[in-house]
């Protein structure tokens, strides 16, 4: 039931983003990956989810080598993720954003759904029921009919997580869930995430907000320049000198508020770049 990265490497052209990382993620825990910008945190998630091709090494989960699979197959194995820059189906309603997650389990029955009278309504109700839980858990019930694009930033983040949970994943990877949320939202998010822990679920969080990470995680991996710098409990991490070096360049203050603040600033810039890279400009 554990997820392990074995000798994982990723290179973009000349740049080596991940340089031989071996990690083991235990189910039933919240494991966080932290590290300064460009440490390769998101790259790990992207490789695990199949968004990036693995240069070398293996990703083992339930005796399956995930890196050999196609993206949707990986998802089919119960690996779900959220994105650093939110990727919802903007033109669809919240309800649909969730419902479509049940695609693979219902596709086989499409014929019945289309041709057998009544069946479609039954399936719809089944799916609606499943969605209702998720909606309720993330407090999105009253937005069910809103277009995802029209949601507030915070709710969009929640919806993205909700969408991931609807695949009831055995591996749940969240890429900066707290980014850009205000205090209240962050606390609420924390509660929600805790409630998502299952004994048979690996939960991975990539996050810059130190206070968030420290209070939420059971185990932390610290990445630095594509290598594993340190791993341990929040306490151990906070106590560790190397980590402070890597992060602040100066020892002392690790309560992370300032760090988080600075990194959030960086991140905003990062995201806007990412947007431009990801898709060519919309027409004028």
């Amino acid at each position: 039931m554990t997820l392990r990265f074995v000798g994982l490497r990723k290179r973009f052209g000349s740049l080596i983003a991940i340089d031989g990382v071996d990690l083991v993620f235990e189910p039933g825990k919240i494991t966080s990956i932290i590290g300064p910008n460009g440490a390769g945190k998101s790259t790990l998630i992207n490789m695990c989810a199949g968004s990036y091709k693995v240069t070398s090494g293996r990703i083992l989960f339930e005796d399956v080598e995930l890196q050999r699979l196609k993206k949707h197959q990986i998802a089919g194995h119960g690996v779900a993720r959220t994105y650093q820059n939110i990727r919802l189906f903007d033109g669809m309603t919240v309800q649909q954003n969730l419902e479509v997650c049940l695609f693979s389990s219902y596709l086989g029955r499409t014929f019945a759904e289309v041709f057998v009278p009544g069946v479609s309504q039954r399936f719809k109700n089944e799916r609606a029921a499943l969605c209702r839980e998720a909606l309720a858990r993330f407090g999105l019930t009253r937005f069910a009919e809103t277009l995802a694009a029209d949601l507030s930033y915070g709710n969009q983040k929640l919806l993205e997580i909700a969408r991931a949970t609807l695949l009831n994943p055995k591996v749940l990877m969240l890429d900066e869930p707290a980014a850009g949320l205000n205090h209240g939202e962050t606390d609420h998010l924390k509660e929600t995430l805790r409630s998502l822990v299952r004994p048979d679920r690996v939960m991975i969080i990539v996050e810059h907000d130190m206070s968030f990470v420290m209070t939420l995680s059971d185990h932390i991996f610290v990445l630095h320049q594509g290598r594993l710098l340190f791993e341990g409990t929040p306490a151990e991490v906070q106590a560790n000198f190397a980590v402070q070096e890597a992060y602040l360049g100066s020892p002392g203050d690790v309560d992370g508020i300032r760090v988080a603040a600075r990194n959030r600033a960086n991140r905003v810039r990062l995201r806007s770049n990412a947007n431009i890279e990801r898709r060519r400009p919309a027409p004028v």
Partner: protein
Amino acid sequence: MTSEATSRAVSIDPGGKIHWLGRVRAAAVIVAMLVALVYFVPSLPTYYVRIIDMVLIYLLLATGLNMVVGYAGLLDLGFIAFYAIGAYSYALLASGQFDIHLPFGPILVVGGGLAGMAGVLLGIPVLRLRGDYLAIVTLGFGEIIRLLMNNLVSVTNGPQGISRIDQPFLFGFPLKTPRDFFFILLPIAIFAVTLAWRLECSILGLGWAAIREDQDAARGIGINTTLAKLLAFGLSATLGGFAGVIFAAFQRFVDPVSFSFWESLTIVLIIVIGGVGNLVGVVVGAAVLIVVPELLREYSEYRMLLYGCALVAIILVRPGGIVGRHHNPAWIMQKLGWR
């Protein structure tokens, strides 16, 4: 956009409680309208019936294309190829060309099947392409098919076309006049539109919408985009094939001229002018794009000039299509009281 359409369709009445009264009323209205149609149309002058037949044929085509363009967001500029395949399969299997004379019914199935297969086969190589790149490749495919029809003289009789195609029979009744064809076309069109609507509301339709919105994220939640896209290509092509078979049986003559790039554009025009992704729009668009040129008949050679102006005018006035996004079948059904 199909979003609100499906939303209404899926989330009316979470409890799934059925309002029988409303349903009965809606059903009654629809049946009444159908009866009126079936009673009224044949009493029109044959010329109008023929126009309506044409509208229905193009409605079939547009419904098919709408699955690819409107639902899955894959721009296809070569859709006419499948129409051509359908038409030629009837022309070859029911004419003196090879002296094969199969009945209409089976060929309808065969033609649809062949077109569907072609749709999948042409779909496989272009799975990686999207947007205008896909559009151009499909344009290329469309032209290649037409040129093949024009050049493989030994098979298709080239530019001369295939004439004297058999009179189609259905259940022993000959299909001669436009009226006969109206009675065949109407149910087929209704079937096609209903099918499309049910698909739009089904999980497959949702999957297509997700691919249209963000293909990568769609894969991320386990949608097999390859399969979904090929289904879209195949299903739409099949409808195109049906339309083709009927067209050939209707005209009793096929030649490559009828399958030019311009025809492909006409079908795209239909769905865009009606309202992309909205079946009601498709119906309206088909009606407009076929009827307007006929209205302009009286202007003789000035016709196309006015037609062009009309196109630009319509697009400028309603860039999103004549029919608004949320005026979809679900909306109509609700207005009729179906809940």
